[in-house]
């Protein structure tokens, strides 16, 4: 009987904690918007809102992918190498093969990059986040290097092409009613990933691996499948992010997507997904990404120095990790 009461108590405390955790981020978003809106009314203008949504489009894809890797107890830095590789390959495919094959190839390249990461993790027997960090740091350099090698370091412009590239224009700046196409893609993807995470076997497997690899393995859950799927999804999402980014900026630069890995980790952790693995959701990441982008936008609006902005991001990441660690005890 006393067991029962004790667990109920901790349950109530937990749900309050869970709620406040969500609340803090939403609260931060609200405060930030209100303060910036008062100091700089332009913040609320349609032009700025469109701007925010444009930034949101490519970054959220990486963040959603990263969510799975972090829930699975790993980390993946290579996304900022995958993005330019996908971009330059997609671009080079448009003229010889057409838009649709180029688009599909780009996505496949992204997924392959992620798949290779998972194989490296599996073959090296890496089990910790730190090992994954170093392995994917390596592949980040390799993928990014391949992109440079492929183009010779030259930036190509979509608009100079003879071939039809209208599909990418639609992805980058098309609208359906009041919604941008990018936003619609986001809605479809986040719904699909949410269902994947909460309702499928593989989604559960990824959660279990992050929760306790040993216990999952000893219960006959395939760790391999889980690791392969989390990294492949992340690679695929990085590819998608690359294509959206490419479509928006209309240029294939081998340096696109630089810094996305840290922003993605920041967004995932700020959203409340635990770096220790096992706990988190794509919905949290959506909120986290929103905060990260708003933060940058607001600081721009308020005229904060760019270097200062980077410092702020770093500080927020540290605070988010600190809060995460505190929640564990």
């Amino acid at each position, binding site marked *: 009987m006393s*067991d029962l009461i004790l667990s109920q108590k901790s349950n109530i405390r937990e749900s309050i904690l869970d709620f406040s955790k969500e609340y803090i981020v939403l609260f931060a978003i609200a405060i930030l918007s209100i303060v910036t809106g008062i100091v700089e009314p332009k913040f609320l203008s349609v032009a700025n809102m469109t701007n925010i949504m444009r930034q949101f489009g490519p970054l959220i894809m990486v963040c959603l992918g990263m969510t799975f890797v972090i829930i699975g107890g790993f980390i993946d830095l290579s996304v900022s190498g995958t993005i330019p590789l996908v971009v330059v390959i997609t671009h080079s495919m448009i003229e010889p093969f057409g838009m649709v094959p180029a688009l599909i190839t780009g996505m496949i390249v992204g997924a392959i990059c992620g798949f290779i990461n998972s194989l490296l993790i599996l073959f090296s027997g890496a089990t910790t986040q730190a090992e994954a960090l170093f392995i994917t740091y390596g592949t980040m350099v390799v993928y990014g290097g391949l992109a440079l090698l492929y183009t010779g370091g030259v930036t190509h412009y979509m608009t100079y092409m003879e071939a039809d590239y209208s599909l990418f224009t639609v992805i980058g700046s098309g609208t359906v009613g009041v919604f941008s196409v990018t936003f619609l893609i986001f809605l479809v993807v986040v719904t699909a990933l949410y269902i994947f995470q909460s309702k499928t076997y593989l989604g559960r497997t990824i959660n279990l691996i992050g929760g*306790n690899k040993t*216990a999952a393995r000893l219960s006959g859950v395939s760790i391999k499948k889980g690791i392969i799927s989390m990294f492949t999804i992340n690679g695929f999402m990085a590819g998608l992010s690359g294509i959206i980014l490419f479509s928006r900026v209309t240029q294939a630069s081998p340096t696109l997507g630089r810094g996305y890995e840290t922003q993605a980790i920041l967004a995932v952790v700020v959203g409340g997904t635990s770096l220790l693995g096992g706990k988190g959701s794509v919905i949290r990441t959506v909120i986290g990404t929103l905060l990260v982008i708003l933060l940058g936008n607001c600081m721009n609006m308020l005229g904060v120095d760019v270097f200062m902005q980077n410092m702020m991001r770093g500080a927020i990441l540290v605070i988010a990790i600190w809060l995460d660690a505190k929640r564990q005890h």
Partner: protein
Amino acid sequence: MNENKPENILSVKNISKNFPGVKALDGVSIDVQRGTVHGIVGENGAGKSTLMKILSGVYTRNSGSITFDSEDIKSTTPHKSMSMGLSIIYQELNIVSTMTVGENIFLGRFKEVGGMRGTHAKAKELLDSIGSTINTTTMVGDLSVSEKQMVEIAKALSFDSKLIIMDEPSSSLTDDEMKDLVKIIHQLKKQGISIIYISHKLDEIFDFCDIVTVMRDGKVIDTKPIGEITRSEMITKMVGRSIENEFPERPRNVGETLMEVRSINTKKLKNVSFELKKGEILGLVGLVGAGRTEIVRAIFGADRTFGHEIVIDGKVVKIKAPSDAKRAGISLVPEDRKLEGLILPFTVESNISLASLDKLTSKMGFLNKSKEKTMAEKHIKSLGIKTPSTKTRVESLSGGNQQKCVVGRWMELEPRILIMDEPTRGIDVGAKYEIYLLMKEIVKNGGSVILISSELPEVLNMSNRVLTICDGRITGEFDPEKSSTHEIMEKAFEFIDKGTKS
């Protein structure tokens, strides 16, 4: 009762300690008189170790008071309590194996005793005083367990200890080594040093303890001079009911051979082969580290092995991973519930469904959540798991209920062979009994059980057959009804007798 209060070196009053979901200690009071050997007995999970950890300052108490050597102890740390004269010799010895004996004794105090020369000289004095001939310049890693214990005792003496707590010191000693320890205990007593002696072995308690305290479920049940209590009284107090029904009646369903294990070899195991019969409970007995766990992990495909054969129903089955074992009808309730069994921050429901997720998955890969809930509810009911809901996080349950979640996970698969590695460790008496009943039920339904346990009575009372394991080999096979504990333990200690340790 306590007219001779100043006679007490240690006086513990009303100590309580709560862990999340468990009351580990509940109003414990114990007085230890100067110059006595005070035994503490109780089952696993009775609270002995928690109490000792509070005394030594590893844990802090939630309430109650401690008086040591007429001084009120408000809060303490392991180092502080040692300097006050209260030392603990743990089961897992607290020793740096890459340093010499002398260095270990005066670890961190070399300057105080006059450099390395002083260290070794003083260390030799201390060792001499307890009649030990260990060379102070030997690496501790090269010593036997009992010699390491001597070093620990010498270290305790170096702090001028007035009270030395020994936590199951005899659990890995041979008979001869035990005699040496008894000699030392008598000597310490003569020097006026008090000793708290924790043991599962009641013979020892009756042999040289003056007073004994029985603990159960975090409470002190009784404290009596050793002459005023009989063995069966003591056991009754320990288990909370008379000994006859500590275990259910032994099941007798043994049939044909179900599984043959042929020559498991790993770094640790040497050519381990045995058979398991249908409806049999097979007990594996051995010291911690003898290789019991490694054997079942090898069968289950949890570790890398160097080629062995598992034959079930006359057919060779390939088991390379736990998922293969699962398919072959083998289940494993692992040794360490928290590290290997449970996903602590997850719900009761997802911990129970963990091994049967494929059953809940549609062809498209979607999980059926309502089926998952029904599955969890079924086992919560049949195993009597006490939990507010299926969505409660498993870490907030008590040890026994957590273990039942792991067991329930495997019951769902209706295993033919259920391997249980220390299934009753750290769980209360009632839950233990229920686990025994469950094992009985499995063999009644034609399944078989392999039981590993450090609690000998448990193995001997539940098993149809017992294998002794020592140093990675099977050293003997016994019918527990026809063999004495002594015979079995002798085989479990076989390597020490052959002197593999130089």
